[in-house]
Every structure is written in structure tokens, then in C-alpha cells.
């Protein structure tokens, strides 16, 4: 886990369970020219995280994140000491925008700050190719963990972090791999990203109160807060994990993804494609809507999203949507694009471990059209055996995943 507000799963969970926020004024560059000047940055020192100078030089920050979290996940699984077949171990890493920060930096150099049309190759470092092609991320992770099975980056915009894990599950289920190192990463806090979201007024201009700038489901919300980070998981077949006595965090019981075929950035207010993804994912998990204990929402903090998603929950879960807690951790850690889906899977797993549902921070006056139980401000003790987590992304992608405690009583 690498998330704003703390490195490692423990710090991440204390932030969420205490309802603190990690959104602040941008420090990575001078943001004064931008409409939105708030972000959720990760306090990350690659040297302290054990990366070598060579690795740091050739990897974009997002790739560094992925390698660090993959190593942490492998060590946590107990598989790091060997005992797995590299040929039967694969890697999928989600990322929406790849090495966008590295590309932004290198472009300035080779173009002399945009002055040259014929950009100058003599100023390009060798690792520019790794930025050009984000499959360098999954390559780095495969090297770091010693995987030689199928490897790929999954890049479906802001649902990448769910779809990457869903893809990994498919590979295990079909028998292609025994173990998958999966998850997602993004480190998009750069001038080009801020500028492109400024242009569509998607990020919040609440620059005078950065700590309370991400306000999903609140009537005063006016855009999301850009974040960054990474989460990685080790997936294996349930029986084999039991046989080797592994600590099993959760079972991935169902997953589905649909497209809205509507708009590259817009959402249909009725939420029917997300509802379809939820219904199919629940079907795969063989669960009724009533079996969902907690809904981990996309909750980006745009009016359009909050209403779309609320409609989708009602459409797919019926009245049950009113009876279960729904919350958005983006209120605390911001929206890290392709990474956030995996970070939210991690939050969902920790909610099941602790039987505590993280809150939606900064939710004081709910949007009247958002009338579910969004767990405002403070975390709540709540028996959580199953979680539905969803994502919604540019390009129209809508994804849903159902997670369950492996020891849950079958409903």
C-alpha cells in the first residue's frame, strides 16, 4: 500500500478509520497558474523504500510505486521465500495514465519548454522509452517478484484498478496462472494532468480549504481532488492458499465491467451500465443484493458522479441500497485515477478485517438527490463479511467487484 497520508496498510487504515484527510495544497510544483491547486500527495522516498539508484533512474514514479507495493505484498503473502513456480506466476498492473509525470518532465527538456517542434533527441534519456510504453510497469514488477507467466498493464481509465485485479482473477480461474501479482498504480500529479482537468472543470477549485476539498455526496462538492498511490495484492486459488496456511484477506467472489457507450467523460444519470455490472458481479458471486454488507463507492465528488452512482445502487440493489452503509474514501485520499480502484479494494478488505466501515469525510449537508447512508464523518463499527466496490471511468467504463471474507457464513 502506498496512499496519501501514510505508507503501508497500517497507516492507511488509521487514516481511514479516524476519518482524517490527506488532501493538501500541491507541493510538487508551483500550482499558482491552475484553477485547482489541491491534491493528495504521497510522502514517498524511493531510497527509503529500498529502490536502487538504477531503478530510480529508469522508472517513472508510478512504476516505483508499483514495484514497492508488489514487493510488500509478496513479502506479506509469505511467498517471497520461494516456493512458487515463476512460469505459473503472472502480473497485471492497472494504470490509467502511465508515466504521464515522467513524460511531462522529459518533454520540457527535449522541447526546450515547448519551443521546439522538432524536439531534440540528444537530450532524451534512454529510459524515455519506458515512459513511452507503460508496459514497463508490469515488466518492472515481474522482474521485482520473479514472475515469468503472463504480464500486462490494464489501462481502462479510472476503473483500471478494479479491472486489473479482475483480469488477474480470470487468469487464475481459467488455469493460466496459479499466482497473480496484481494491483494498480498512478502518479499523475503533474502540470499536464492538472491542466487537462482544469479544462473540463473536473477538479475542485476549493483552494482555500484543501483539507476539506474532497466532498463526495455533499451538496457543496464541486469536483474531485487528484491523488496518487498504489496497492498490490497476491492472488491465488482459495484451496491452495488454505493448504499452505496463508493469511487469507478476502475472496474475490465476483467481478464485471460494462461500458456506457455514451460519452468519453459524461455519465448517464440513470446509472444503468454500472447497475448492470453490479448485477452481473453479484450473480458471479451467487449473492443476492441483501448479502452485500457495505458498498465502497466510487464517490469522486462530482455532482454527475454522485447522482449517477446513487441511481446505479438503487437500480441494482433495490430498497436494500438504503439499508447498507455506502462510503467514499476519496474524501480522504483523493482520486488517484487508475490506482484508486485497487486502493479501494484494499480499503474494502481492511473494512472486512476490522468490521469497521470507513466514513465519507467532509459530508455535512448531503445533496438532497443523494439519499443513501453515506457514513458521514466518522467510521462505524459494522459487521462486514462482504463488500461491493465499484468504479467509473473516462471512456465510459463501469466496473464492480464483490469481495467476501473467506470464513463468511453462506447466505
Amino acid at each position, binding site marked *: 500500500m502506498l496512499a496519501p497520508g501514510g505508507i503501508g496498510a497500517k497507516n492507511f487504515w488509521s487514516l481511514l478509520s479516524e476519518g482524517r484527510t490527506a488532501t493538501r495544497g500541491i507541493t510538487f510544483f508551483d500550482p499558482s497558474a491552475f484553477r485547482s491547486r489541491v491534491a493528495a500527495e504521497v510522502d514517498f522516498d524511493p531510497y527509503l523504500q529500498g529502490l536502487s539508484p538504477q531503478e530510480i533512474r529508469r522508472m517513472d514514479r508510478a512504476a516505483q510505486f508499483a514495484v514497492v507495493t508488489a514487493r510488500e505484498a509478496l513479502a506479506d503473502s509469505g511467498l517471497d521465500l520461494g516456493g512458487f513456480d515463476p512460469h505459473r506466476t503472472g502480473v497485471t498492473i492497472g494504470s490509467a495514465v502511465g508515466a504521464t509525470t515522467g513524460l511531462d518532465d522529459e518533454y520540457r527538456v527535449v522541447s526546450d519548454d515547448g519551443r521546439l517542434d522538432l524536439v531534440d533527441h540528444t537530450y532524451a534519456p534512454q529510459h524515455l522509452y519506458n515512459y513511452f510504453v507503460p508496459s514497463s510497469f508490469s515488466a518492472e514488477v515481474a522482474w521485482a517478484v520473479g514472475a515469468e507467466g503472463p504480464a500486462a498493464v490494464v489501462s481502462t481509465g479510472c476503473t483500471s484498478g478494479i479491472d486489473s485485479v479482475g483480469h488477474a482473477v480470470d487468469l487464475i480461474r481459467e488455469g493460466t496462472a496459479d499466482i497473480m501479482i496484481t494491483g494498480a498504480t498512478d502518479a499523475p500529479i503533474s502540470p499536464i494532468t492538472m491542466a487537462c482537468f482544469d*479544462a*473540463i472543470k473536473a477538479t475542485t477549485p476549493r483552494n482555500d480549504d484543501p483539507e476539506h476539498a474532497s466532498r463526495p455526496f455533499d451538496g457543496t462538492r464541486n469536483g474531485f481532488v487528484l491523488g496518487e498511490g498504489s496497492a498490490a495484492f497476491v492472488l491465488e486459488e482459495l484451496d491452495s492458499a488454505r493448504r499452505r496456511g496463508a493469511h487469507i484477506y478476502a475472496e474475490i467472489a465476483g467481478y464485471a465491467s460494462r461500458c456506457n457507450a455514451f460519452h468519453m467523460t*459524461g455519465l448517464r444519470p440513470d446509472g444503468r451500465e454500472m447497475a448492470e455490472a453490479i448485477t452481473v458481479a453479484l450473480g458471479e458471486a451467487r449473492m443476492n443484493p441483501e448479502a452485500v454488507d457495505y458498498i465502497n463507492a466510487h464517490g469522486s465528488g462530482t455532482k454527475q458522479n454522485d447522482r449517477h452512482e446513487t441511481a446505479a445502487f438503487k437500480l441494482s440493489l433495490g430498497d436494500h441500497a438504503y439499508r447498507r452503509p455506502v462510503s467514499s474514501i476519496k474524501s480522504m485520499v483523493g482520486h488517484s485515477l487508475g490506482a484508486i480502484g485497487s486502493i479501494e479494494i484494499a480499503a474494502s478488505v481492511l473494512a472486512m478485517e476490522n468490521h469497521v466501515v470507513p466514513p465519507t469525510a467532509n459530508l455535512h449537508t448531503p445533496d438532497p438527490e443523494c439519499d443513501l447512508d453515506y457514513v458521514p464523518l466518522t467510521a462505524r463499527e459494522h459487521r462486514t463479511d462482504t463488500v461491493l466496490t465499484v468504479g467509473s471511468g473516462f471512456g465510459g467504463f463501469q466496473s464492480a467487484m464483490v469481495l467476501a471474507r473467506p470464513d463468511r457464513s453462506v447466505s
Partner: protein
Amino acid sequence: MSERKFTFDALKRILREGAGADEGVDLDGDILDADFEELGYESLALLETGGRIEREYGISLDDDIFTDHRTPRALVAAVNELLKDNTVSAA
């Protein structure tokens, strides 16, 4: 710059450059009072159009400019109001 006026022709040019035109819509036809939405311009196209007007005329448009002014005639008038007020750009 202070004497600049935003014309209907300028709006049509900016729409074409920034967002194209829907098939079946003739921007040179009688569209002054047509809704932007009817003309096939959704939120993204209007954001791009607004951004281009802001840059070209050195003004800053309200976030709600296209919800408050839904037709070419209303938008042209609103932008000209701003140009009158803002002899010096507030951007």
C-alpha cells in the same frame, strides 16, 4: 483589445474548430436561437468552446455560462457584456 466585439461568425468559427458540427446541422442556417444541445454540442464540446473564447478574448467565463445562456444569441450577448466590462482582462 478593449473595443473587441464577439460576433456570431466568430462563435461559429470557434465551434467548428473546437468541436466540429453535427451531421444534419447547418451552422450557417438559422441557429441563433437554437439550443446548443439541439445543435449536438454536449458539455465537453461547450467546455472546449468556452476555453477557446476565454483564450482568444482574454476573458474569464463563469462556470455556468452555458447553462445560463443556452443559445448562440444569448451567449454572444453575454460574452459582449463581459468584453464591455473587462477592458482589462480579469483572467
